[in-house]
């Protein structure tokens, strides 16, 4: 069984080796991942987070960028482990979306 991440040897074209500047939200996700996975919380432990990412399915894995995969995997774990409900996440997304629309910041 080959996961969507395990691409060694599969033709994929040239690799983009340009450094990418991290956006603010990507830094936030990185920080949140560190906090949720620390020894006190152990909610999104490294290997488990990777397993969730590898289990997103080929379509989602290909469509999402690196930190979007992290975000999706973390959200799944937070719901699965009872920290947040999907309704709470959906409500917060709607709230933020509305706020950004009002300020014209929505991309």
């Amino acid at each position, binding site marked *: 069984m*080959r996961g969507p991440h395990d691409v*060694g040897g599969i033709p994929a074209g040239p690799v983009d080796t340009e450094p990418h500047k991290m956006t603010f939200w990507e830094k936030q996700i990185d920080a949140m991942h560190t906090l949720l996975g620390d020894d006190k919380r152990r909610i999104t432990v490294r*290997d488990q987070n990777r397993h969730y990412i590898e289990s997103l399915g080929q379509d989602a894995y290909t469509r999402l960028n690196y930190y979007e995969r992290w975000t999706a995997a973390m959200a799944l774990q937070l719901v699965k482990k009872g920290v947040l409900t999907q309704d709470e996440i959906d409500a917060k997304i709607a709230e933020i979306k509305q706020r950004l629309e009002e300020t014209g910041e929505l991309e």
Partner: protein
Amino acid sequence: MMSDGILQPGQRVRVREDYPPGHIRTPVYIRGKIGHVTRVFGEFENPERLGVGLDGKPKKMLYEVRFKQADVWPNYNGPVHDTVDIDIYQHWLEKA
């Protein structure tokens, strides 16, 4: 499960040719290939068990294994001395 002790540098090994589901750190392209141990890193929690929320015990020995690129890729046309080093856990290796 591997039971014949810690592998030593220089030991010829074959990577298990197995395709289980789950969080596997052994890349598909190296399974079934033959190389030799170049470093012994020591024991680490098993990522396959950590990946599914378990505690990673029992720990597994982790090795650096070196493969000739020509043994890994069919029709490899780089220099013959090219190698690739991969970190592999003991339960994925058998003596060859």
